[in-house]
């Protein structure tokens, strides 16, 4: 009976998802030039009337329009009055690893076990998610896709949000390993009568097991081993710096401990994820070159005593302190909600950043932190032509209106299931 039920559920899901997703874009045939748009480079500069050329998937030039001489072989698109941006990048997501949070069979981001550095997001990434086309229509063209759960969750990869399959879509394979720093407090009481979080009695033990695993993995990475441990194999590149180490941590004191943990093992690239109290320890982050993937700006303060706008103004505090940081949309409903990432950058502007600083926090800074700034994050010659045109300010929801988008020069189909449903029912009511 249960089997029958499962089969029905399965069939049901198949039919439910029968609507065909958007066809991946075709490769670029000739140089495209976007003319007269306001170019937001991503590094803090703006070119009011710009010319942006790209060919073979790469940006060939970005200049003032007056410096561009028309080539008749170019495919010229006039974008006068419009804004052009490098593709926004969403770090620390589970996009493509989960379709419907409440349906277990669609969840693919958290495997059994405590220490799983070897599980890889790359091969699980679903290019055909119905969610992805609704994300990129707001300007997000790249995402870091991460395993979650356990102590060491696994290995992430960075994807461009277009492609026939994961091989096609991947932008950087196995970019980093993700760790959930053990928490010093764990829950108590029940939801109607919450008790204060109690000291996590397992904290020291968990920390010790993490220490040991790192010590072992470091030794393993240093000389030839006769027996292979695929978990430790996965860790090797952390110590060489080829992979980055992402550690989820929030409280200031834990952040300090994490910084010294990484120092102890000589980790070249440490990135904090979450880091809601990073604003309290900016000096130590700056001195040690620790980067921050900041949790969602649209969040509540961590306690009633904090400034009511603390999450809104944290980006400004990190900016002023000179910490390398970027914005993420991690948290509840993160995949479907990711399309709001640009607006969280907008809020950071309302609370102190300049618009171009906020833009960097979802483009160049993110690219640097993920180690993809050689090909993404700004509108600069030599980088991938992953960019988009909006009719208005893309950080404000009123004016974010993506009219054109390219990934590696390939023009995206900006349709999505939601637009189709909109059209379908508009037609129903207009009698068409």
């Amino acid at each position, binding site marked *: 009976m249960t089997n029958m039920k499962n089969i029905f559920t399965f069939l049901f899901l198949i039919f*439910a998802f029968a609507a065909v997703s958007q066809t991946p874009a075709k490769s670029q045939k000739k140089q495209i030039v976007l003319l007269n748009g306001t170019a937001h480079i991503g590094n803090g500069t703006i070119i009011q009337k710009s010319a942006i050329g790209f060919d073979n998937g790469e940006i060939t030039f970005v200049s003032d329009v007056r410096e561009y001489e028309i080539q008749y072989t170019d495919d010229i698109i006039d974008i006068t009055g419009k804004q052009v941006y490098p593709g926004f990048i969403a770090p620390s997501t589970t996009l493509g690893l989960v379709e*419907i*949070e*409440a*349906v277990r069979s669609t969840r693919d981001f958290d495997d059994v076990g405590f220490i799983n550095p070897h599980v890889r997001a790359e091969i699980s990434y679903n290019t055909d998610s*119905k*969610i992805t086309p609704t994300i990129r229509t707001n300007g997000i063209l790249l995402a870091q896709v991460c395993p979650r759960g356990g102590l060491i969750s696994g290995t992430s990869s960075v994807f461009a949000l277009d492609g026939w399959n994961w091989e096609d879509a991947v932008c950087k394979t196995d970019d980093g390993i993700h760790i959930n720093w053990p928490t*010093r*407090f764990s*829950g108590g009481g*029940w*939801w*109607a*009568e*919450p008790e*204060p*979080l*109690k*000291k996590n009695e397992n904290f020291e033990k968990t920390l010790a097991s993490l220490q040991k695993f790192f010590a072992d993995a470091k030794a393993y990475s240093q000389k030839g081993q006769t027996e292979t441990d695929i978990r430790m194999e996965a860790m090797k590149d952390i110590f060489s710096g080829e992979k980055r180490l992402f550690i989820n941590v929030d*409280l*200031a*004191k834990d952040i300090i401990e994490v910084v010294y943990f990484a120092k102890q093992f000589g980790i070249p690239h440490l990135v904090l994820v979450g880091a809601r*109290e990073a604003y*309290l320890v900016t000096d130590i982050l700056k001195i040690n070159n620790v980067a921050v993937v900041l949790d969602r700006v*649209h*969040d*509540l*303060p961590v*306690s*009633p*005593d904090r*400034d*009511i*706008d603390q999450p809104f103004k944290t980006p400004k505090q990190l900016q002023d302190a000179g910490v390398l940081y970027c914005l993420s949309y991690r948290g509840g*409903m993160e*995949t*479907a*909600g990711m*399309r*709001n990432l640009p*607006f969280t950058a*907008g*809020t950071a*502007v*309302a*609370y102190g950043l300049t618009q171009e600083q906020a833009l960097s926090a979802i483009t160049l800074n993110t690219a640097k932190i993920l180690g993809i700034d050689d090909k993404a994050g700004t509108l600069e010659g030599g980088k991938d032509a992953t960019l988009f045109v909006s009719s208005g300010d893309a*950080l*404000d*929801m*009123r*004016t*974010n*209106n993506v009219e054109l988008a390219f990934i590696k020069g390939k023009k995206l189909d900006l349709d999505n299931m*939601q*637009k189709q*449903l*909109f059209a379908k*029912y*508009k037609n129903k*009511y207009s009698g068409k």
Partner: protein
Amino acid sequence: MKKIILAFLFNFPLFIFHSFSQETFPVNGTRENNKLYYAFTNATIFTDYQTRIDSATLLIKEGKIEAAGKGINIPEGAVITNLKGKFIYPSLVDVYTSYGLPEPKKESAGQGPQIESKTKGAYAWNQALKPEFNASSVFAADAKKAEELRKNGFGSVLTLQQDGIARGTSAFVLLADEKENKLLLKEKTTACYSFKKGNSTQDYPSSQMGSIALLRQTYFDAQWYALTNKVEKNLSLQSWNDIQSLPQIFDADDFLSALRADKLGDEFSKQYIIKGSGTEYRRMDEIKATNASFILPINFPDPYDVEDPFDALLVNLNDLKHWEMAPTNPSAFEKNNIQFAITADGLKDQTKFWKNLRKSIELGLSETAALKAITYSPAQITGMENVVGSLKPGLKANFLITSTNLFDKKNIILENWVDGISYKVNTLDVQDIRGIYNLSIAGTINYKLNIEGEERKPTAKIFFTDTVSIPADIVVERKFITLSFPVEKGKTDLIRMTGVAEGKELSGRCQLPAGTWTDWKATYKDAFVEKPKKDSTDNKPKEIGKLVYPFTAFGWSEQPKQETVLIKNATVWTNEILGKMEGTDVLIENGKIKIVGKNIAGVVNAKVIDGTGKHLTTGIIDEHSHIAISKGVNEGTQASSAEVRIGDVVNSEDINIYRQLSGGVVASQLLHGSANPIGGQSALIKLRWGLVPEKMKIENADGFIKFALGENVKQSNWGDNSTVRFPQTRMGVEQVYYDAFIRAKEYEKKLSAGTERRDLDLDAIVEILNKKRFITCHSYVQSEINMLMHVADSMGFKVNTFTHILEGYKVADKMKAHGVGASTFADWWAYKYEVMEAIPYNASILTEQGVTTAINSDDAEMGRRLNQEAAKSVKYGGMSEEDALKMVTLNPAKLLHLDSHMGSIKEGKDADVVLWSDNPLSIYARAEKTFVDGVCYYDSENDLLLRDEVRKERARLIQKMIAAKKGGEKTQKPEKKEDKLYHCDTMEEQN
């Protein structure tokens, strides 16, 4: 065998105590004379809390007070004890204990829902109702515990089982070591209640509003049982009725619960005695208005370890402040003339009782009030004042002999007499051996010996010469004095001596380091002069921080007032036919919008705000919110919980009220969750930060109720155990509604005939049918939306609002025809199967089809950015900016039937307005000022001052805590607190 002998030896003293005779019990041994008079003379006697008589006599016989006062004749043959210099008080009374009762029985909870009670027999339907419980029937004396309580001065207690919602009756018992037959002073002394279901494993109730509803329903059921019932025997309801005339004690675990309990009592003309929580000082005006007597705990919190500035961040201001203010709670009651008793309940460490009580006295509680609260008041409020609590003739001979004033820090309780039997706590008389002596050992060695310190705990010093001295160890036990000290300064070889005091002389035998025995003698030379000691506590600053309302960071020390305000030259979004008006003035006065126009002149005494470059809108109204709710948003344990009311559990202390004001929100519908097809009744509030729940509710607002459809009510995502409760399909959901409405119609007819049992669940459904209550229905997919409209049409009611309504766009035409409104999310989707076809264009299509459409939050975080959420409809579907703003202002006002006085900027409407830094739909806009009823509850500049106050107050308290720790106070580790945020599918996880 050895063990048996040991056991016998240890228990020997108990046999003595237990040998007191009882009338109906055969005597083992010979008769004892227990009819002697005992007289206590020359004492300072408090015959009651307010009557002090010096040099007085207390006379008792056969466990009763015969007389107390001056000039009392002492009968011949009385046992006389001279208590010169000592004090006598009535023994203490604690009316909130579980002394001598077994641990409440705990049923093991099974997997999955438990819909029915596990109590076997003809009892109440709900396992948390145990009015039949009778403490006296299971009371068994506990000698060890009794001794512990007597040590603190207690002589009698009320004992009750602290388990369940209706907890049955308590017993009043003595703390003597006698047979229960003598200890039990009164069975069924009080009836006891709480909002906590305790050990009950039954699902219902899972929230505090459910507990309130259960009590309310039970009052009606009991009335019905007494008057009209002919169909069932119910021993619980029988007991419930039997105990209604007793004093009724209600355990309220915070001050809001205390107010809720009192309000519930008022509905049924019950005046509860409230067992408080120690947080009542936060709202004394309302506490006084309850007219209740209180039983107050004094389990004040320990200071936190706050040396580490990071760890200190984990402790919230209200906990820091509570540490400081909790000891002021009793004196707040005294100042307000509210009768209160003090209980040791909740003290993990009983030795803290006196320490904490003295702390309260230091902070303003008078000694008279303190004495009253531990003697007379507890007796009086439980109807036992003619038995215990004072030393009037005829009362129980329960009294304390103390070394000095009871509240003096140095006081020692010497004896505690219970029922005329003496229990030694400390030796009654000790000889004061303090003084300066000549010590001679073996008649040859001569030293000076100083015995100093406290009478009952002396210290000693040996002077080898006038300048060379060394402390000696001294122990005084009964008549024996033991001294030991080194033979010379710097050596470890000890001289050890033991002797007795006779008159002023001490003498005895001693052993020298080599083991030789010899005599010693100490001759009294001079009196010991006590050096005036600096009392460290007297130097401590007694400064206590200000009370703030509500009691949290960003609470007001002074509540903001209604003002006359003229906002000049702003862009005013009227939401009226005039639309968006540039360069316009708005005058607000007496909480209303007085004038909207250009260049308003001639206004005197108005506070003028320059609105140049700024935008003024009416305040945001959140149609779907779960902030400001205490202890549970879902009573999802039954398919219908129409009887529960969010209005019973509004929480005025939630920081999210203030946070949302900072996002321009002025009013919210606080909704029940979506765990069942028929949920609970809503509360409509304005965000009047600082006022109590009753004053936050919108006056004369219509009643609303939450309905819900889809996966939540089918329990689809609750795990594999939740497959028992009907309904599990959308088919079943429809039938729940038909059943409810058909039954409600029949019920209404019978109710008017006067024979029907009041059913609060059906009452709410009848209100819907009579257009007295309106439905907000949680909904997602089109089929179910369509279904409910059909049910409504065929049953003769209208659905007022579909909330969430993510597939509303598919049936917008049908919704328009039904006349129902929509309150939706801007762009949520994909989090569960039923929202896979949710689209952000929903609001635009609904609006275009003529459905009144709002954007709501259902989320404390999003609630403060609803202007941004509304703006998304400009992006998705191309809505006009003015229409978009209406979706979070005028339209929700319409859906909540508040638009006659809210929702637009129009002369005569409520002055609920927000001044924005920018176009309110822009991501860059910030609310600068938020007015509710003309009161500025949020001002971005004032907010900076409040932040500063939070910082300073935290710093002050942290310094004070560290000082307290240095002063020797025990501390506790900081613990991280997380705010509980509710969504409509927040469910009970455990209890």
